[in-house]
């Protein structure tokens, strides 16, 4: 950065001129095409900015002042509409304009750096690359620039930009009562955040309650699959079991059925008139149907159990792979030393498996915090609760967010919750990941 200013201050008139007219430095030193390209970029940017961007950016601080107007048109006998400001488009295109401006500033800085570098080269009478040489460099030494240019641009446009747009919505009051073009929404600052934690008792209760259940669910979902998958893998792998391949195949079949389909079917089967209740009643084990999906405790148990059915095949597969890789000599030498099966398991198998699967398990844990499918398709977040704001007792933060967005159209609140989910998930995963053995002892594998 300091070098940049030093170079710039030392530069001659042409370098300083590149501030205003991009590409001037290049043109002077013989790189005609590059200079013209820089200049064209400058013209295009100003056309974009004044022809399109400023229209929206000028309203960015208020997100629109005039809603659509109704004017009586005597001739047509209708109330004609005079278009007003559309808050959502203002927000979206302002963000777009700001990002394009940021990109342009980078381009402008590159232009200055190029100009001063060319000036240095000329001063020292070194060779200035022609267009052909520049092109060859891009294919050889600077190939990384060529390769990454397109992915970076698309990443910025299609991933980062929408995320910024949605984060900004959290600081507005964009909900069902503020839908453009009939209404405008505006900035409300931290109001949504204070609402969740201080302002509204129901929302606070809902948030803390759902957060608690989300953590409990993530822990149970991950570790039941982990432990039972491990046990299953060990049993199948042990010397006492014949036809290992057949057993493994049977337990892997649930993977073949799409999760979506199996969850919806099980959800239907658990209804009061569904297959499970009818079967149990026919067998005489129960008199009235069990409220699998309408009782709080039972529905929570149900989601955990069904998740086991879905998740154990995967963990079993992973552990089978790990188990088959534990060197036999370790077990042999341990049994020679007099270790029993339990001792062998605790000292050899367990550390090995934990070391290998810890990072993946953390990923699974973090994934379960956001496990939309299992919860939504099985219980739709139900049973609904009067204590909660638009949520049920098996709702995760992410399913609550979905309901707020699609059913309630409360985009501002949903966006705020989304930001919280992101914070929780990223802190969790970064904190735990950096402390796993796999990362700390990366160089010392066993």
């Amino acid at each position, binding site marked *: 950065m300091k070098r940049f200013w030093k170079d710039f201050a030392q530069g001659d008139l042409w370098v300083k001129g590149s501030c205003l007219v991009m590409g001037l430095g290049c043109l002077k030193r013989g790189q005609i095409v590059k200079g013209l390209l820089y200049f064209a970029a400058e013209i295009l940017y100003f056309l974009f900015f004044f022809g399109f961007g400023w229209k929206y950016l000028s309203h960015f601080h208020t997100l629109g002042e005039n809603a659509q107007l109704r004017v009586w048109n005597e001739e047509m006998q209708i109330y*004609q509409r005079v278009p007003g400001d559309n808050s959502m488009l203002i927000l979206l295109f302002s963000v777009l304009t700001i990002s394009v401006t940021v990109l342009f500033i980078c381009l402008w800085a590159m232009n200055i750096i190029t100009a001063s570098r060319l000036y240095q080269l000329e001063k020292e009478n070194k060779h200035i690359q022609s267009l052909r040489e520049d092109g060859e460099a891009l294919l050889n030494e600077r190939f990384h620039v060529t390769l990454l240019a397109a992915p970076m641009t698309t990443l910025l446009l299609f991933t980062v930009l929408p995320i910024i747009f949605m984060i900004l919505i959290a600081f507005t009051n964009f909900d069902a009562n503020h839908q453009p073009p009939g209404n405008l929404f505006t900035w409300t600052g931290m109001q949504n955040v204070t609402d969740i934690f201080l302002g509204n008792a129901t929302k606070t209760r809902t948030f803390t309650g759902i957060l608690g259940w989300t953590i409990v669910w993530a822990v149970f979902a991950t570790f039941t699959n982990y432990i039972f998958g491990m046990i299953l893998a060990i049993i199948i792998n042990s010397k006492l079991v014949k036809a290992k391949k057949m057993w493994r195949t049977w337990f892997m079949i649930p993977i073949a059925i799409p999760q979506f389909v199996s969850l919806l079917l099980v959800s239907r089967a658990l209804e009061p008139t569904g297959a499970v209740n009818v079967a149990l009643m026919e067998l005489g084990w129960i008199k009235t149907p069990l409220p699998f999906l309408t009782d709080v405790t039972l529905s929570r148990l149900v989601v955990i159990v069904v998740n086991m059915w879905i998740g154990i095949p995967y963990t079993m597969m992973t552990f089978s792979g790990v188990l088959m890789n534990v060197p036999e000599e370790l077990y042999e030498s341990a049994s020679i030393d007099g270790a029993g099966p339990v001792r062998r398991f605790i000292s050899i198998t367990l550390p090995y498996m934990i070391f290998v699967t810890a990072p993946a398990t953390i990923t699974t844990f973090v994934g379960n915090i956001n496990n939309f499918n299992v919860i939504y398709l099985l219980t739709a977040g139900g049973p609904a609760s009067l204590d909660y704001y638009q949520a049920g007792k098996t709702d995760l933060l992410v399913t609550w967010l979905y309901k707020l967005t699609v059913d309630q159209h409360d985009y501002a609140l949903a966006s705020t919750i989304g930001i919280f989910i992101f914070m929780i998930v990223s802190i969790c995963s970064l904190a735990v990941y950096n402390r796993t053995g796999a990362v700390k002892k990366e160089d010392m594998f066993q």
Partner: protein
Amino acid sequence: MKKFVAMFLALVLCCTALAAFAEDITLKVWEGQDDQELLKELCEAYAAAHPENNYTFQYGVVGTADASARYLEDPAAAADVFVYPDDQLIRLAQADALYEVTRNHDAIVAANSIGSVNAATYQGTLLGYPMTADNGYFLFYDKSVLTEEDVQTLDGILAAAEKAGKQFNFDVANGWYLASFFLGNGCIITLDENGKQVCDFNSEKGVEAAKAVAALCAHPSFLPGDQNILTGTIGDSVCAGVCGTWVADAIKERLGDNYAAAKLPTFTVNGEQVQMGSFGGCKILGVNTQSAYPVEAMNLAEFLTSEESQLRRFEVRGYGPSNINVAKSEAIASDPALSALAAQSDYAVTQLIIGDFWTPASAFGNALIADPTVDVQPLLDQWVAQTIGQ
């Protein structure tokens, strides 16, 4: 002078000639998947009836349930004319999505039933052209198990069901159906003059209605669940249930000659019989305020909801019409489901709900199903508090 008059007349002639030039008009129309064929037929008929312009129609498949959501995604790109259910009216009106009906307003109001006109009205302004009036619910029953007298009262239904060892299905965990007890007993849920949600389900009358619901839940022949009248198998273990016209065909298939429908029964409150109320819903044809051809779109909408179109719609799709003349016709009167719906519509109210009514209603219903002896007052208070937005 003569020259001047001649020039002036020539100019007038020119203008009229120019005005008679056919305009190219493109209109985008949205309706559900199953209605596309009929929609094309009616639009072509409209184009044929108006040869002075060249009409091009772009058809979009947008189910009525998704109408407002799809519209609000991008109002400028939405259809000029689209079908929406009346419960989305408030949302669309608040987004200033719909043109007011100002052309032939009185004729349209006179031609359609009061209920459907009210359903399409927001704050005193008619915001669409009523198209159907059959989004309500009523009683389906198996004639071999229940007599016409039985189905007059809820107690009669439950007694007959218990005797036959069958069940009566009512979706208590759904605010749409649950409200029938409260509305019947005189509670209100509506918007006041300022557009704020008003609900008194936790009043004394509401508590009486809630106790009646609890009594229903406690009865051995009660079967909860959405559309369990079908999945719980009517004709086998279910003998009656409350649902709407969308299951009429399926039930007719199962019951055959034993198929019957009636208005909702009366229920007992403090020893007296009270008629169950209901929500009456309509489908409405709206005109987009962002339309490039507002007047033509309005004319098309008026045509698509005219008496002839509504009769055609009933013939082809079986939708109950909102047009008064069509509703009085023989064809409608002989359809058990639609005549039951018409009988029930005397006790139906328009659905004016903008608050968070549905989720707490579901929670309340589930609470009663789980434990019919629970104290209803605090639960009702919570439900109403969330509905009116506190």
